[in-house]
Each structure stands twice: as C-alpha cells, then as structure tokens.
C-alpha cells in the first residue's frame, strides 16, 4: 500500500490556498496537476539543454535531440507501440484526430462514405470528422447510448457498413466516465475490415495502454491528462498506414530535399512533425511517464476507485441531486445536476470552499442533449485526492443548498 501523504508531497500545487481554503482539486478530467519531477525536468531543460533538435552538430543540440528522442522511446514503451516511429508528436489529442481526419481519411473519402462515431464523444472527436465530411460529401453516423450512458452494442452491426471508412470512439467518456469495451469494439470493426481510431485522452490517467493488444489503427492522447505538460500529445498509428499517408503540415524538419519544383519528405515520424517541435514538453511528457512508472499503479487505481465509489454513494444521498451516467464500468468521473441550482452556480459556490470542479457541457453538447440537460457539474478524481476532500465537497454542496434555500 502506498502512502497518500507522500504522493501529495510530489505535487506542489496541492498545498495552494484558494479563497482562504486549501485547494481541493477535483477537475482532473480537464487536466491533471504536475509532479515536482515534471516541473524540475522542464526547468532543467531550459537551464541546461535548450537548443533546436535535429539541426546542428554542436553538443547542446545533440543533447536536446537525445533527450527529445528518448522521450519518444518512453512513450513507445509506455503504450506498447511496436516501432518508435509509430509515435508522432502532436499538440494533443485534438491535433492527433485532425491529423488522421485530413491525412488518412480525406484522400480516400467519397460522397456517401460513412464515418462512425458514438453519442458520447468529445467535440474533438466529432468536429474534425464533420469538417472532412463536409469537404468530401461523406456522412457521420452515430452509435447511440442508453440511459445509463453505455453504448448500445446491439446496434453496432447495422452501423458498421460497407461504406464505413473509419470507426472513431472514446476509450473513456470525459463527461460521464463510461469505460467502453474498447477491445470488443475494435474487433467488431476489424471483422468488417474497418479501421479504428481510439480517443485515449481520458484513458492515459486511468488505464494501462497497450496499442498492440488493442490492435487499433490509431490512438490519440494528451500528456496533460496524465500528469505531463500541456501542449504535447501523441498520435500512435500503425506504421504501414502512416507510411502511406501524405504529410499533414509542410515546413522544416519534415523534408528530405526541397527545390521549387519538388519536395521529398522525411521518413516517419518526422514526416508528420513540421517545424520546431515542442521539445521541452515532449521531454516533460517523458518525465511524467518515468514518474508514473515508479508508482504502484495497481494500488493507486484501487485507491482512486475507492474514492470514486465513496463520492458516488455520498452524492446519491443528497436530496434533489441526480447523477448523469451510471455505466457499469466507470472511471473516476461523476457528472451530476441538482434541482434548483444550475451547475454554473454550483461551481462558483463550491469554489468559495476551495473546491475546483467543472461546470459546463464538457465539450460534449450532443451528450448533454441526450440527457436533456444544458450542462452538468462534474467531479473527477486523481490518486492524489483524499477522503477528507470528499467530505469538504459534500459540505460545499450543502452550502449550495443553503444559498438557494433548497431542502
């Protein structure tokens, strides 16, 4: 068993005081806090390593290149990619999905072709497909969900058709926490020869990722959801597909030779990495992976799940509070609404207790519509949260009731 106090000491921001109260950070699905090791790595990089990568022969540049490429190796190992060049640096999940939409899908889409997504997707896994559909005349199809917030799997067979060119779905719903039967979904698509993109933004902090086992064609994630820096993420793609895809953006670092008549492109992964990359944050991502790798992951996830169950049971006891999404398999994310108090007001009021929660549509407006709510309040846990913090959350929600004179 791990020591929660020691874990908390690794995250300096957790001793921050907000509105005169200790910070209680329960918006981990939006972004996670950063351990000292990641912060130190970023500082160290700018103090001792900073130079442009892949460009020069001097020692400093070689040092930067080495660390930058070592971070790629760490990601490869962490997500179990077969080849290091299958790991493409991007700004985050959003850019990874846009890259696949424009570079993989657009060249092959014809009018009437279909892209299958699900009713619980984040806007980042809806809008890029809509853009490419508008450009080509393709059609978006949506796998529906039930009242618990689970995919209706019986409908999948009818929606995977001979016109389906890609099935893109989220591993874990950012808004309601549903963990999808990812492997089963991928296998179903593959039975019909349909490639799959997994939006892994919420998977990174909650599950061990093995892209070889999943056998998905593409996997997208962002470092900042998994204790790394913002502005850096990864697109994993199967090598044989990435090799056939045209570059996403043109510029420096992604070419072999350039003349005004013709440019030839660099090999993977550089083909997709035009311009000076986000070197420091890529190295910071590597540091986050190192940090997570030395923790007892199984114990952490068990503890985090205990927090989730405890919070869920306690929230259910509050009169007038309704939880949105109660899938059988759920990550530590709870969305809820309260009679007589708008999520936005809940967010402001609990903030005065130092409690940071999200109150919005969570970039999943179609999902909100499905549940007939304009927005929800959402608490999402990390392994650095505590049972005492849940007690303060409950006290703060009691304060919400007091403000509006609710029973």
């Amino acid at each position: 068993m791990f020591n929660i106090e020691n874990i908390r000491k690794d995250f300096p921001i957790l001793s921050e005081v907000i509105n005169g109260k200790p910070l209680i950070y329960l918006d981990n699905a939006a972004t996670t806090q950063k351990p000292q090791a990641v912060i130190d790595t970023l500082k160290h990089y700018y103090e001792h390593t900073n130079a442009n990568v892949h460009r020069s022969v001097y020692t400093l540049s070689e040092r930067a290149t080495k660390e930058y490429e070592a971070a790629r190796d760490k990601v490869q190992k962490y997500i179990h990619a077969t080849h290091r060049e299958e790991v493409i640096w991007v700004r985050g999940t959003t850019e990874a999905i846009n890259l696949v939409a424009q570079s993989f899908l657009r060249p092959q889409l014809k009018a009437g072709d279909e892209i299958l997504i699900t009713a619980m997707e984040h806007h980042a896994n809806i809008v890029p497909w809509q853009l490419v559909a508008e450009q080509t005349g393709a059609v978006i199809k949506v796998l529906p969900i039930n009242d618990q917030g689970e995919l209706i799997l019986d409908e999948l067979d009818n929606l995977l058709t001979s016109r389906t060119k890609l099935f893109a779905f989220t591993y874990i719903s950012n808004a309601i926490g549903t963990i999808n039967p990812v492997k089963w979904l991928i296998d179903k698509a593959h039975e019909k020869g349909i490639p799959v993109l997994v939006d892994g933004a919420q998977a990174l902090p909650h599950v061990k990722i093995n892209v070889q086992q999943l056998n998905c064609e593409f996997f997208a994630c962002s470092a900042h959801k998994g204790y790394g820096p913002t502005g850096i993420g990864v697109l994993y793609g199967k090598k044989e597909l990435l090799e056939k895809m045209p570059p996403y953006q043109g510029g420096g670092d992604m070419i072999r030779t350039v003349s005004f008549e013709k440019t030839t492109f660099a090999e993977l992964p550089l083909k997709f990495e035009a311009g000076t990359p986000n070197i420091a944050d890529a190295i910071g991502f590597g540091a986050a992976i190192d940090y997570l790798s030395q923790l007892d992951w199984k114990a952490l996830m068990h503890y985090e799940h205990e927090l989730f169950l405890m919070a869920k049971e306690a929230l259910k006891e509050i009169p007038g509070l309704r939880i949105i999404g109660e899938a059988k398999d759920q990550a530590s994310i709870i969305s809820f609404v309260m009679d007589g108090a708008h999520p936005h007001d809940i967010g402001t009021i609990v903030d005065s207790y130092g409690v940071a929660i999200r109150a919005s549509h969570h970039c999943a407006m179609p999902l909100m519509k499905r549940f007939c709510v304009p927005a929800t309040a959402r608490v999402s846990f990390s392994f650095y949260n505590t049972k005492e913090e849940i007690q303060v959350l409950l006290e703060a929600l009691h304060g919400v009731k007091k403000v509006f004179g609710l029973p």
Partner: protein
Amino acid sequence: MGETTTNIIMLSDLYQDIIVDHTRSPRNYGKLDCASHHAEGHNPLCGDQLELFLHVNDQGVIEDLSFTGSGCSISTASASLMTEALKGKTLKQAEALFEHFHALLTQENAEASEDLGKLIVFMGVKDYPSRVKCATLAWHTLQAALKRQAGLVSTE
C-alpha cells in the same frame, strides 16, 4: 456539517436575496404575443439560452417585454430584473441603462448610476470575472433585438 461564516459572507455579495428570489420566481417569464422585437442569446461555455420579446410602440417606449430560456442563477435573475427595469422606459433610457449596467460590472471604481435601481445588486458579480457574461447575456440579447440583428447573439 459545519458551515463557516467566511463562505457565506463572500458568497452573499454575489447571491444577494433579490437575485435568489428572481432565480426562484423569474418575473415576466414567457413568450409575448405580437412582439415588435425579438432575439435569442446564447452563452456557449455554460449552455445558457435566452429568448427575449419586446413590444415597442411608435413613440419608442418599451410597453412590454418578456423572456424565456434556461440558465444559471445570475443570468436568470439578470434577465428577470432587466425586464422589470425596462418596462415603460424609452429606447434612449434603455440604452443609457445598458451602458450604466455594463460599466457597473466591468469598470474598476465605476460609480453606480442612480437609474440602476435594483440592478445595483449585480455589483458583486464584478469580483467573479467568469460570471460577468452570465449577468450581461440578457442585455446583449436586448441590444441584438433592438438593433434587429439577424441570427443569434453569443457571449463568446
């Protein structure tokens, strides 16, 4: 569960009794038949939606106005109190009131203009920058309705 007084003091600046009252029972709520002006307002970040109806007579006086929609306490109470404040006002007076209200919420050291009346309760919103757009949504929708701007007005 122990309640700390600090929370209540801070929050009571924002959630004043009048605001809570207008949240729980909004005035002039519903559609207006034969509206001369109409507009929809959205606050895309929090999902607030508002529809505003006005009847302005030939003399440029707002004879009647109403709203529908759903939103947070601040946006609902603001719409409700706005409809109360504007009934019987001329368009010119309405424009001046909008400017005074906007200044109250956004300008440092803004002096509260006398014509604001009850609207002064929104002064506390200034300390919550992310909530200013909740309080101004109804007013921006009013501007859109009076200028007969096509389409939606959005706070973003």
